[in-house]
């Protein structure tokens, strides 16, 4: 299932599928290590429209709401069921 980072639930894992928005934005995310095909785990959302924190490899990144909405993740199948959707 494809979800934006904002819609993912804390604890869910997945693979970055697409980064929407300008090429500059995708490039910048790429530099910090978030690029297509990268495995990612969502840690938390700070309130409804706050930043999202994720874990990639060994590090954590906080992404503001406006940007997190543009990052689409293919969420692992097993995870989806286990969180009760």
């Amino acid at each position, binding site marked *: 299932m494809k979800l934006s980072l904002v819609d993912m639930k804390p604890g869910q894992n997945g693979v970055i599928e697409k980064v929407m928005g300008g090429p500059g934005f995708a490039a910048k995310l790429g530099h910090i290590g978030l690029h297509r095909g990268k495995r990612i785990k969502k840690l938390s959302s700070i309130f409804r429209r706050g930043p999202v924190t994720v874990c990639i*490899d060994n590090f954590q990144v906080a*992404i503001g709401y406006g940007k997190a909405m543009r990052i689409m993740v293919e969420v692992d199948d097993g995870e989806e069921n286990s969180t009760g959707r």
Partner: protein
Amino acid sequence: MKKIVLVGNPNVGKSVVFSHLTGSKVMISNYSGTTVEFTRGQLKIGEDSYAVLDAPGTYSLTPSSKVEEVAADMVDQADVVINVVDATNLERNLLLTSEVLERDVPVIIALNMIDEAGHKGVKIDVEKLEELLGVPVITTVAVSGEGLKKLVDALPKAVNRKKEPLEVADRWAYVGSVVSEVQTIIHRHHTWLESLQDASLRPLTGIPIVAIVLYLAFQLVIGVGEMIAGFLEEYLFGGLYGPLMNRLSEWLGSGGFLHDILIGRLFDGAIEFEESLGVLTTGVFVEFGVVLPFLTVFYLVLGFLEDSGYLPRLAVMADRVMHRVGLHGYSIIPMVLGFGCNVPAVLAARNLESRRERFIVCTLTSVAVPCMAQLAMIVGLVGRLGGAYLAVVFATLFFIWIVLGLIIDRFMPGYTPSMVVEIPPYRIPSLRAQLKKLGMRVKGLIVHATPYILGGILLVNILYTSGIVDYLGVIFKPLIQGVLGLPGEAVSTLLIGFLRKDVAVAMLVPLGLNARQFVIGAVVLAAYFPCAATFAVLLRELGLRDMFKSAIIMVLTAFSAGFMLNMLLDTVVPAPYMAAGLVVVAIILAFVVGSTSDRRELEDLDKTA
């Protein structure tokens, strides 16, 4: 002289390596963006000496902020590049390494944080990595100095690869393949530090943690600061220095030109450290008796927050609030630094992506974030009028911060894009590193502030004795008395405020103000203009045009806030209600008005989607 440049991602330990290689002291903290300017030092190897340059961290040589530009430029000037790589984050770090290897410069790699990599179960085959990259790789633990001697010895072996530039997707593939060949990860359990790490990023646990941290920080700084200041006042100034100055005063004949400058005015034949306004009395007292104790405690607390890695987490939790004033969470870091001194705050604003953010951070900090020197005086002097009046000062500044932020966000074109920032792991601060940093900062204060504080006091005396104050007092009376309700003479504090805010606050005492006037004076002094040192960096960072705009905003804001207090405080609304009211109104306004930046960013998203 040959140039060795340290290049690497943010927060990988470049500055620690730099200080070991050169013996120079630089700021080291556990968050991205500590170093904002390049720093130069010297390294002697045998007979030769080299210039070593510590660059700001960067994720790429195609820069996306002012700070990253500096780093990218420096690679081009280098004779040798030491690429510092964080072993716990090999893949992300090697993205930059692959870019560096394409430049026409010899490169050597310091594979740093190898100790932490061990704890995290990351094993790296160093020989294999060396072979794949084609440049020497030396493992280091910069904080303990391990491997740095080997690094220096290996410098002549640096290799210039000048590889063919890769396309973006190919670069990821290349780095991915290197990592898969050299790295093995052994799974292990979460440590307590890591559990705390996650807890401080979850709203349910994170908010209470923010509250506890801020409360403790505030209590420590104010409580311990007051304790030390009180102790010094009683024993050092009362018991030792006071009698000495009294002797000097007698010796100078209790009057005359020199006496006025050094000792100042006498009250019933005695020196009053707060009011005499002599260089050796009030000047020394303000700096060493009030400012220094508070600032030392503040920097101890700040040092702990910086080195533990809490600040970026505070930034995440504060993101929603910061959006209301047209910023994103990470801008809270310059503001926190601003409570120590506005100068490093303005410099730290360089990490922010856009001109818009830098303008807002600089303006809000100058207006509504008083530095510790000034805060110490406010706490000391306003505090004695009662806690409610002190609360009014803080509440007014908070109110200004929110309302001015909302206004600038609404009327300044464009928007502030939301943040993407790395959150470092928690690290247990080392006592030695803490003390070293504290020493650097305290020394900085003494060296930089002393001439201004003593010079400021000297200038006060000249202004008074020459009659300039009386003259200006008459001219500015309509403004000072009409709008702010202060005596015309108070213009002198505004003049001195350009030099030093702490001295300016002290100068409110001899004016014989009542409580509400004192509060108005303190607020206006905090907001109306930055001190000379801050002004100089603001001008450099913002440029003439933006500085001019910012200055107009500052002056207008200060006088509006002063006028508001003059109209309402005590005459219409008693102090405790005033303080509570300002905070509540500011919060309600923030909710009702919302973030213009947010709206514009989403509109922009709809357009590109």
